[in-house]
């Protein structure tokens, strides 16, 4: 809060001249970067298509409505597969995430120097890569199908769950652990009585939260061939069967809303 003196008057300014200059320059730089980015995008855009977009959008809309309702009879199995991909993937991820989280948390890791960095690397690498990419990779390795989808969802979720879980472990109340240790409990008993009860609510919350996200993600895994309703979506898009596409989109929307509702209910019940 600089106060300048000029002509015997005190002038209050929010920032000094230097500070405002730096800020002004920062904004200028930001705008320049944005303009540059926009130019790159616009260079690789065929603007003819863009000007034509309203007509095309309108065209797609008229073709897609009304949705082909009786196609729903063929969607039962894909919906079941989608649900399984999300649920089994979440369960596998949770089973694997628990040990990773305990190895990554500062207060439970056996070795902060060697094991913790490895656990953190597992977390960051599984987290940074989208499940669609994991699915691509797994399809190249073990072939297309639901199984690849389950594993892709599982791998992607390990990092996410383990990160939230190890943060919860680091926030536990240490005195409860101390009290259990003081009774002469063994290492595993301290874990079961002192630590696990404290993180159980967080664990349940994370599980349901991730399951909700996984339902969304598993609906599109089929686009790359990893099973579920996305397979039908991709097939319908390939033959430009827009009434089927619109029906599938409606089904996906409903599924997403149901899973969000379920997860909100369950989380409400836990907390």
């Amino acid at each position, binding site marked *: 809060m600089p106060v300048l003196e000029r002509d015997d008057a005190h002038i209050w300014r929010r920032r000094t001249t230097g500070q405002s200059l730096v800020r002004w320059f920062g904004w200028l730089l930001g705008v320049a970067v944005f303009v540059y980015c926009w130019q790159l995008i616009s260079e690789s855009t065929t603007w003819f298509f863009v000007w034509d977009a309203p007509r095309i959008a309108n065209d797609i809309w008229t073709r897609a409505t009304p949705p082909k309702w009786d196609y729903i009879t063929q969607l039962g199995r894909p919906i079941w597969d989608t649900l399984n991909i999300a649920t*089994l993937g979440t369960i596998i991820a949770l089973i694997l995430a628990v040990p990773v989280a305990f190895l990554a948390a500062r207060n439970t890791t056996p070795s902060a120097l060697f094991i913790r960095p490895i656990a953190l690397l597992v977390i960051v690498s599984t987290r940074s890569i989208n499940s669609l990419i994991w699915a691509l990779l797994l399809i190249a390795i073990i072939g297309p199908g639901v199984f690849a989808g389950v594993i892709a969802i599982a791998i992607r979720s390990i990092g996410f769950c383990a990160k939230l879980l190890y943060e919860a472990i680091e926030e536990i109340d240490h005195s409860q652990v101390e009290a259990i240790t003081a009774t002469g409990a063994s290492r595993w008993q301290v874990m079961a009585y002192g630590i696990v009860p404290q993180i159980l609510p967080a664990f349940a919350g994370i599980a349901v939260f991730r399951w909700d996200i996984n339902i969304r993600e598993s609906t599109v895994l089929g686009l790359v061939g990893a099973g579920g309703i996305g397979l039908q979506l991709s097939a319908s898009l390939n033959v430009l069967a827009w009434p089927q596409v619109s029906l599938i989109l409606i089904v996906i929307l409903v599924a997403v809303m149901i899973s969000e509702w379920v997860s909100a209910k369950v989380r409400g019940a836990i907390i």
Partner: protein
Amino acid sequence: MSHRELDDMLGKGWRKPAFVKNAWLRWALSVGFVAYLIAAFLTIDVDWGRVYEGLDRGWAFVLAFTSPDFISRWGDIWSGLLESIVMTVAASVVGILISIPIGLGAARNIAPLPVYIVCRGIVAISRALQEIIVAILLVAIFGFGPLAGFLTLSFATIGFLSKLLAEDIEAMDKVQAEAIKASGARWMQWINYGVQPQVMPRLVGLSMYRIDINFRESAILGLVGAGGIGATLNTAFDRYEYDTAAAILILIIGIVMALEYLSGIIRARVQ
């Protein structure tokens, strides 16, 4: 009297009270869950022969991480990566700018009801549709290229950021805002002095987080032709060029880690 109670209880076993009180419901839930798991496992048809064959390829891929090939397709990698970054930057800027007014409109304590309903509607639509599905539709409308990806990410950013911003505004401290209103401030001044200082740190943190997500998402948009590194990655998988794929994945993980580190620093500074 209490001693009679004690005498009744001595010699009797003790069991931990169950989480679900109703014994019948408890059994139904566990039996149902196990039945679901069995059904789910049975309906996944895994071609174990194919998986077994794939193990070699999987191992080859793991080995590829020890000798990633940045060089032979560096041209493709560089242009794809640049496109991803450009889309991320442009979409984050536009998305954040648009999500601020929508976030204000979606906060019940400062927006009138009609505005609130419209803004909440936009948020709900944006959140219900996954990026990849939006990208497919936008590619169909605007043609291939980064413009579709840019629009997809901007749209997704709006849903994410507006919702969290609105929730933050609804949870803010009323007294501070009232004090500013009491001084006779106009609406804009009121937002600037009463609301902005309270939500700014969280807005910055969430924006950084969203930039991180946008980059990760930009890596898959290429799968459906919406620009970015995804197309290069897909080609690498199709050609079984695991060393190139490994190089791309390492770059993605590295950039995500750098972004997380940066956002950690920025968040610590604004708080």
